[in-house]
């Protein structure tokens, strides 16, 4: 079997998406969790419109980050357990590319749904339309970065039996810049100012994570597979 690198990427991506489609709960859980966390705040604090509006950027971003953290556990686990990863390690292709494809598939099934429902939740927080646009854009650029950062942590803990809290402790701090930039971009748009600055910075972080995280995760997965 001789595959080009691009083909390999597609094969892995398609396979992972198909596997995910068979397990609906894996797709639904992060979104449901996201909606749940976002709904907690009005219930616990106050349903006043201006109050919620001020809260919205931060709450939606925190919930998105938590949903990302929660879903990461599953990123490589199944592959390690059923031996697929062992075969992938022996492939004559750069492992980073396989990881990138897997991370993208993971984002498509867990991150993208969260981004998709975010505008609806933003409406319940009385966020104005242009701020919702910025929120959507910031989540669209930011959550892939979260998944990429998470792939390093998931790869490091893939061989461990208990990894939920550990994973959050490890990668949570690394994700904070994305959270600050994303929430602040939305906040700036809410205040009627130009949010392009933080959005560009989010884009820069995504580019950095795209280039550095897959090789790091590849090194990590080799360590975990030992």
């Amino acid at each position, binding site marked *: 079997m001789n595959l080009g690198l691009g083909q390999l990427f597609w094969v892995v991506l398609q396979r992972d998406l198909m596997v995910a489609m068979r397990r609906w709960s894996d797709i639904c859980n992060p979104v449901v969790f996201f909606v749940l966390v976002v709904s907690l705040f009005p219930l616990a604090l106050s349903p006043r419109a201006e109050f919620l509006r001020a809260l919205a950027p931060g709450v939606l971003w925190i919930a998105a980050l938590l949903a990302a953290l929660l879903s990461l556990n599953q990123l490589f686990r199944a592959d390690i357990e059923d031996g697929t990863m062992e075969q992938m390690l022996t492939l004559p292709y750069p492992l980073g590319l396989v990881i990138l494809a897997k991370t993208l598939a993971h984002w498509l099934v867990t991150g993208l749904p969260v981004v998709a429902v975010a505008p609806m939740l933003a409406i319940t927080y009385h966020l104005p339309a242009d701020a919702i646009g910025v929120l959507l854009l910031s989540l669209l650029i930011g959550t892939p970065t979260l998944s990429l*950062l998470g792939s*390093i*942590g998931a790869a*490091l*803990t893939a*061989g*461990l039996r*208990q*990894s939920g809290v*550990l994973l959050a*402790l*490890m*990668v*949570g*701090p*690394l994700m*904070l*810049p994305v959270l*600050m*930039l994303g929430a*602040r971009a939305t906040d700036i748009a809410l205040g009627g100012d130009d949010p392009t600055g*933080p959005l560009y*910075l989010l884009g820069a*972080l995504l580019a*950095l994570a795209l280039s*550095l995280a897959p090789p*790091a995760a590849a*090194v*990590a997965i080799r*360590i*975990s597979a*030992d």
Partner: protein
Amino acid sequence: MWTWFFQLASPPHFYRMAGSLVPWLLWPALLLILIGSWGGLVLAPADYQQGEGYRIIYVHVPSSYLSMMVYVTMAVAAGIGLIWRIKLAHAVAASCAPVGATFTAAALITGMLWGKPMWGTYWQWEPRLTSELILLFLYFGYMSLRSAFNDLNQSDRASAVLALAGVVNVPIIHFSVVWWAGLHQGPSISKIDAPSIAFEMLWPLLVMILGFTLFFLGVLAMRVRGEVLEREFHARWAQDVLRGANRVEAAG
């Protein structure tokens, strides 16, 4: 030069050398810290704006300097260990984390104690304290990952990846925190460049920083000895050391 380096990097030699180096690092450290404290508390004049309260910088700045320096040391050692598979480097990285974490905590607490008289509140979400807090989280993440593995070799390499990911993130975190806080308040050490800080105020600070650095190196040398012994358990020299622990200790 290279033979010297290889000799240094050979675990048994390092184990012995580190042991004899400890007092040469810790006693000067103690002396410098005492001189620095004397200079900072007694000799240095009161600040014209902050009065006597500014004297907290003589412990806050060295602690926060160490908290970052130790993290970078840890990441560099981890990287060396990961790339060249040097156990000694992993031992250094493993020894850095708990020391760095405690100094981060010290920097946070002294920063808060400084904040109360300066800002009127113990905690302000300003760049320096916030970065320090995130740094503490990074240390905790590193240490909990390290303790999650049973296999020391795996633990070393996995935590090395995390340390490297963390150190790439440290400047990003720093700049986004500065940007996020909206107001840029440069780190105190940059006051050295400014002519505003008088020499009588500056020298105790530099002495303290030097003393803290030596202290860190001394504690590091102690910890690395244990870590090296653990990693070299199957080597002949380590078992000799363990069999005759008392004799070797007495010999230095």
